[in-house]
């Protein structure tokens, strides 16, 4: 209880609250600009966090993370161009509603659903992260190695048909993480006699490259493609109706919010699952309920043609992923998604490591982070409602042609500022190009990022575990002396093997059916 009070006291400092609100504001702006997202915004911001105190930097980042998804729904509703990928389904019913002259209602629904999802998710973080962290304190080298393996396996396993590419991506990440002095002997590995690599691949420029330069390159591709097609942005609908949803509508949407926020929370806690999986699951589930309960009734739109539930489902689900994705990061040190991986960078800059020890070494910071998610979501609703008319008209005045090089210059300057070394600029550029190549080849990013984050810990825990067991690998699957590790390895195996068995089963069934 004292630790919670300490976190609350830290958060309630006026400057920290101001940074949190500034983060919410910037998140709404960034999210509402098509092409920008939370990854880019945080990648640009991380190098700046050097010069801020940890509480200010984290408050700003949390505010930004919470509100980008809401901002993303504005262009999705207005012109069916989602500001962020997580708003891609919001645009279907949202834009249909806007074209029927109900843009205000659609945006109001998106905001209220996001706030509901966000607050539910913050409560999940508040309830589950601390006890999970307490439990994780029992983990030794053996359990921590198995936990790292489970983290990677869960990400790879969720890729379905892409499992081989996922394994390749994870292996590349683990291999890159071995660059630098060996933990055991200090032998320089894969350094090619470059002093800059002795301490390992610079982490911040690497993140800046993957999260900032890669989208910049994608934006450059999109600009060229649009120019060749001669596309011009379409006219923006106007908001002429009320934005705040009626009480009657709120009552009707409550079951949808609860259902979809629960889906988002469960998905958020699983490393690597991400917002997209949450919105698709929530949308699909809600469509079935809507078709059964509302479709065909007088005054009710068809699904996909302006159904309020079609906005409420993806918006409450995507915001429910936000705080819950921090549960594995804060309690176990494993990022729930790519954005929470960026939080590792920010914490590392401030000399902290996420994981169970954060609650012991820096309880005020750990609790401040948790409570900030709750407060940011409370701020977000009124701020988004107040700003929506301005944002929806201003965002389309920012030309993409200037935005792309601005992101490029910001990211590369940020990479340079981490140690003031030109080498870091090359690292950011190299990893940006690698990320772009991965996208083009449909090689998933998530396993690469998770492997880069966990690589050193996995190797360290592996070598220490094998040291304890005198080289006996069965220590990881010893149900008597290491039952937690045994359970984690069983779960990891299930994550990878079950999708393969399911695919084989399905293809066999298809062959049988064809015969």
């Amino acid at each position, binding site marked *: 209880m004292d630790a919670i009070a300490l976190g609350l006291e830290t958060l309630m400092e006026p400057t920290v609250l101001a940074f949190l609100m500034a983060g919410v504001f910037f998140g709404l702006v960034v999210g509402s600009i098509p092409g920008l997202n939370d990854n880019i915004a945080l990648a640009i911001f991380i190098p700046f966090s050097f010069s801020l105190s940890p509480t200010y930097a984290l408050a700003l980042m949390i505010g930004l993370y919470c509100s980008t998804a809401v901002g993303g729904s504005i262009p999705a509703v207005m012109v069916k161009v989602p500001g962020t990928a997580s708003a891609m389904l919001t645009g279907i019913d949202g834009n249909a509603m806007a074209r029927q002259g109900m843009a205000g209602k659609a945006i109001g629904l998106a905001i209220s659903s996001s706030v509901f999802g966000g607050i539910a998710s913050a409560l999940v973080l508040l309830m589950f992260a601390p006890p999970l962290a307490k439990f994780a304190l029992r983990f030794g080298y053996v359990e921590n190695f198995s936990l790292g393996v489970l983290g990677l396996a869960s990400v790879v396993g969720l890729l379905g048909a892409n499992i081989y590419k996922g394994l*390749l991506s994870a292996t590349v990440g683990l291999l890159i993480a071995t660059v630098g002095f060996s933990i055991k002997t200090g032998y320089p590995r894969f350094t090619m006699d470059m002093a800059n690599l002795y301490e390992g691949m610079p982490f911040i420029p690497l993140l800046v490259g993957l999260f900032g330069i890669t989208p910049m390159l994608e934006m450059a591709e999109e600009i060229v493609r649009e120019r060749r097609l001669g596309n011009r942005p379409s006219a923006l609908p106007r908001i002429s109706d009320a934005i705040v949803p009626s009480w009657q509508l709120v009552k009707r949407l409550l079951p949808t919010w609860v259902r979809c926020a629960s889906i988002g929370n469960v998905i958020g806690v699983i490393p690597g699952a991400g917002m997209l999986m949450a919105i698709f699951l929530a949308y699909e589930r809600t469509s079935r309920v809507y078709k059964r309960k509302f479709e065909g009734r007088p005054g009710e739109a068809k699904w996909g043609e302006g159904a309020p539930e079609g906005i409420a489902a993806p918006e409450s689900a995507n915001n429910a992923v936000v705080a819950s994705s921090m549960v594995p990061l804060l309690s176990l040190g494993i990022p729930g998604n790519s954005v929470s991986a960026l939080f590792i960078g920010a914490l590392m800059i401030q000399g902290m490591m996420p994981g169970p020890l954060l609650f012991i070494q820096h309880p005020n910071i750990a609790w401040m982070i948790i409570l900030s998610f709750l407060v940011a979501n409370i701020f977000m609703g009124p701020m988004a409602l107040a700003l929506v008319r301005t944002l929806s008209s201003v965002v389309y005045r920012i030309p993409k*042609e200037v935005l792309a090089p601005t992101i*490029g210059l910001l990211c590369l300057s940020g990479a340079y500022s981490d140690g003031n070394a030109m080498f870091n600029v090359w690292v950011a550029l190299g990893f940006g190009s690698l990320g772009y190549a991965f996208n*083009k080849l449909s090689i998933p990013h998530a396993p690469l990022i998770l492997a880069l984050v966990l690589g050193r810990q996995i190797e360290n825990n592996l070598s220490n575990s094998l040291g304890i067991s005198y080289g006996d690998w069965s220590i990881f699957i010893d149900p008597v002396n290491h039952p937690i590790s045994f359970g984690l390895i069983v779960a990891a195996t299930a994550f990878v093997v079950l999708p393969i068995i399911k695919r084989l089963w399905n293809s066999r069934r298809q062959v049988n059916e064809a015969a």
Partner: protein
Amino acid sequence: MTAQLRKPDVWAGIVFLVLGVWAFAESSTFDDMSRTYPMALSAGLVLFSASIILRSVFDRTPPKADAESATIILSGPCFQILLWGGWALLLGLGAGYILPSIVVVSIAVLRAGFPGRLRSIASSVAVALAIFGIFYFIFDVPLPVLEVIGDILD
């Protein structure tokens, strides 16, 4: 076989296979205690790359011949990589931060088709100076500057 070689997955697999073989050979030169883990990972990389190549070769779906996409990638992202690589080179060669930034941002904006040459250059100067200001003055990052500009700023 020629058709299979047009599949990007085959080439990606070959690149990672070569990388895996190189990493395996390199790891074998490390000392006894430091080599096992990277060697195992390199072997894994070789295995997964080979499986991607094989899956792609035996996949009967014909490769998509898309010259348009290749042109877009070359004139969009590839050009940007070269452009920003040039920026990094100029900074490394001591050309300072401001001038290379203005030049590179201007080229990127003009090439993207932003209307009005003068407006493009003005926007680029504004972007470069604003970002320089943020890093140099607010966050106290010692960005490389030409001696003349450094004297003025001091």
